[in-house]
C-alpha cells in the first residue's frame, strides 16, 4: 500500500475510533461498557504482540507474562500506595523491565525465535504455577495479600493526584479507549521511524541486517521491551475492567488466545490484531453462553484453519481482495502464496540446520 493511501486509511481509522470513544457511553448500557473495557484491554495486549511479532519477527508465546506482571504490579502498588497514579507507572515499568531482563537473556544468548517462543511460554507457566501457590497469609507484598488461586481485588483508577476521586466505569472506558488509540498511533509512528524500519529489516533477514551493520540484538531487545511495556499497560486496564487479578492471566489458554488474535487479525498490520482480539472476545463470550461444545475446540479449529488456509490473516487478505477488485493487483504477494514451502513468509523462523 502506498504511503498516501495508508495515511488515508489511518485518518479514517482515527476518526472512527474517536467517534466511538465519545459516542459509545452515550448509546450503550453500562454492562456493555464495562465488558468493552476488558475487550479494549485485550486489544491492547494483541497490539503489543502484533508490534513485536508482526514488525520485529519476535514470536513471543508468553506475551501474557508481561500482561500479568503489569496487572499484578498495578494492584500491589495501588494497594500499597493508596492511590493508582504511581501504580500505573510502576506497572508499566515493571512489565517493561521484566521484558528487558528476559529479552537480554534470549537475544544476547542468540536464542533463535522458535526457541524464544517456547521459553516465553515456559516463563508464563512458571508465573502461573507460582501465583497459584500464594494463597497463604505469608504471601504478601506490603499490604497486598496475593490471594493465590482467588487472586486480588483491583482498586479502581483514580484521577491523578486525587487518591479519593475514583473513576466510574464509563470513565475507565474513556481511559481504555484513549489509551488504545494513543498506543495504536504510537505504534504506527514507531514502525515508521528508523528504529521501526530496522526492525522490519531484521524480520525479513536477520543475517543481512546484521551484516549491514545494525545491532540486531539491541534492536530486538528495544522492541521487545516496548512490547512488554504496552502489554503491562494492557494489564492495568484489564485489572480495571474485570476488577480482579487472578493467576489465570498467566495460563496456557490466555497465552494461546493472544497468538490466535494476531494470526486471525493478520501479522504485519497493527489494526489486524486489535480487530482480531475484539472479534474473538465477542465470539468466545458468545460461545460461553452454550455448553455443548467446548470453547477450546472452536478456538483450535479457528487456529488450524487460519494457519493452513488463511496464513496471512483477515486484514491483509481483505486488503489484497480489495486491491484485486479495484485493479491494484500486487503480484508479488500472490506468487508468495502459491508456493508456500519454498520461502519463509513474514514472521517465519530462521531455519535451524544441524547435523543430527
Amino acid at each position, binding site marked *: 500500500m502506498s504511503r498516501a493511501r495508508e495515511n488515508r486509511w489511518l485518518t479514517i481509522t482515527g476518526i472512527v475510533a474517536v467517534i466511538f470513544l465519545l459516542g459509545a457511553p452515550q448509546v450503550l448500557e453500562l454492562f456493555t461498557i464495562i465488558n468493552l473495557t476488558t475487550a479494549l484491554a485485550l486489544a491492547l495486549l494483541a497490539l503489543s504482540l502484533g508490534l513485536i511479532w508482526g514488525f520485529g519477527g519476535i514470536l513471543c508465546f508468553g506475551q501474557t507474562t508481561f500482561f500479568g506482571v503489569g496487572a499484578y504490579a498495578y494492584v500491589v502498588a495501588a494497594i500499597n500506595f493508596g492511590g493508582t497514579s504511581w501504580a500505573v507507572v510502576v506497572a508499566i515499568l515493571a512489565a517493561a523491565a521484566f521484558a528487558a531482563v528476559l529479552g537480554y537473556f534470549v537475544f544476547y544468548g542468540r536464542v533463535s525465535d522458535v526457541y524464544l517462543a517456547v521459553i516465553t511460554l515456559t516463563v508464563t507457566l512458571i508465573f502461573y504455577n507460582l501465583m497459584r501457590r500464594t494463597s497463604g497469609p505469608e504471601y504478601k507484598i506490603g499490604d497486598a495479600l496475593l490471594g493465590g488461586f482467588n487472586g486480588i481485588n483491583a482498586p479502581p483508577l483514580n484521577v491523578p493526584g486525587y487518591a479519593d476521586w475514583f473513576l466510574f466505569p464509563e470513565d475507565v472506558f474513556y481511559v481504555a479507549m484513549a489509551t488504545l488509540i494513543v498506543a495504536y498511533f504510537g505504534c504506527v509512528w514507531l514502525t515508521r521511524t528508523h528504529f521501526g524500519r530496522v526492525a522490519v529489516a531484521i524480520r525479513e533477514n536477520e543475517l543481512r541486517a546484521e551484516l549491514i551493520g545494525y545491532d540486531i540484538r539491541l534492536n530486538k531487545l528495544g522492541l521487545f521491551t516496548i512490547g512488554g511495556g504496552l502489554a503491562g499497560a494492557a494489564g492495568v486496564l484489564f485489572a480495571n475492567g474485570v476488577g480482579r487479578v487472578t493467576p489465570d492471566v498467566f495460563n496456557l489458554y490466555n497465552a494461546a488466545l493472544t497468538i490466535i488474535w494476531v494470526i486471525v487479525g493478520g501479522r504485519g498490520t497493527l489494526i489486524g490484531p486489535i480487530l482480531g482480539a475484539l472479534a474473538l472476545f465477542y465470539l468466545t463470550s458468545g460461545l460461553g453462553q452454550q455448553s455443548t461444545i467446548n470453547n477450546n475446540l472452536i478456538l483450535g479449529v*479457528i487456529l488450524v484453519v487460519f494457519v493452513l488456509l488463511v496464513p496471512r490473516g483477515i486484514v491483509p487478505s481483505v486488503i489484497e481482495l480489495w486491491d484485486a477488485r479495484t485493479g491494484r493487483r500486487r503480484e508479488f504477494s500472490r506468487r508468495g502464496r502459491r508456493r508456500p514451502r519454498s520461502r519463509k513468509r513474514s514472521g517465519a523462523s530462521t531455519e535451524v540446520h544441524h547435523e543430527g
Partner: protein
Amino acid sequence: MDLYAALALQIVYGVANLVLISLGLAIIFGMMRVINLAHGEFLMLGGYTVVISTNAGVNIWIAMLILAPLVVGIIGLVVERLMIRFLYGRMVDTLLATWGLSLVLIGLITTIFGAQTATTISPPIGAVRIGGFTSSGYEIFLIAVTALLSIAVYAVLRYTKLGLLARGTMQGAEIASALGVSTGRIYAVTFGLGAAVSGLAGGLLAPVTGVLPTIGATYIAKAFITVISGGAAILSGTLSASALLGSVNSVLSYVTGPTIGEVGLLVVAIVLLRLMPQGITSKFFRKSL
C-alpha cells in the same frame, strides 16, 4: 544410609520421568523439526486410553503397554496426513497449527468426557522397602521401562533400516527422495512413532498423575525445555538434559517443595540456554545420536 538410597532413587526417578515425558517430543521435534505443541495432549490421550480401556475391563498392562501407544500412534499418523505434512520446513507454522490441534484435542475430550473426569487408576505395583524406607514399586518399574524405551529408540534409529532411512530423510529429504526413498511415508511413520512413544509415556504416567483433559499443560513446558536444553542430538541430548534438570528438580523439590522444584528446573534451563544456545549436545556428545 537408607535416606541417601531413597533420595538417590528419587533423583533417578525424577530423571526417568523427564526422559519419559520428553522422548516422544525428541523424536518429533528434535528429529523432524516439527514443533509439536500438542505433545502434552498426546500424553493426555495415552492416559485416557488406559483409563477407558481398563474401565472396559482390559488388563491394565495391556492397556498401558500396547493399547496406549497403538491408539496415540494411529492418531499421530492421521494428524500427520491431515495437517503436519503441509507444514514441513515451516517451523513457526507447525508450532501454531499444533497449538490449534492441542486446543482441539482438549476441547474434544472435554466435550466428550467433561472437564472434571479426574478418573484415577491405582498403580498396579505396591510399595517396596529399602531398608527403613518404603518406596513406590511403580516408580522403580517406570525407571526400568524408561531405560528399556531409551535403548529401544536407540536401537531402532541406529541399527534398523527404518532408522537409517529416517535419519537420512531428516537430514536431506530431497537427496533421500532422489535415492528412491519414499520420504512422505518416512515422515508419516516417524511422526507416528513419536506419537506412539508419547502415548506410551502418557499411559504409564496415568496412574501417577491422574487424567484430566488439561493435564497436557503440566507436561508441555518441561518436555520442551528438556528437548531444547538437550540440543540437536536427540537421544543423548534428552538423556543429558533430563539428568541435569531432573536432578535439580528432585533435589529442590526434596528440600523446599514441588513448586520451587519446578521453577528451579525451568530457571536452570533458561540459564543453560543463555550459556549454550544450541543445547548441551552442541558442546558435549556432539557426534552421538
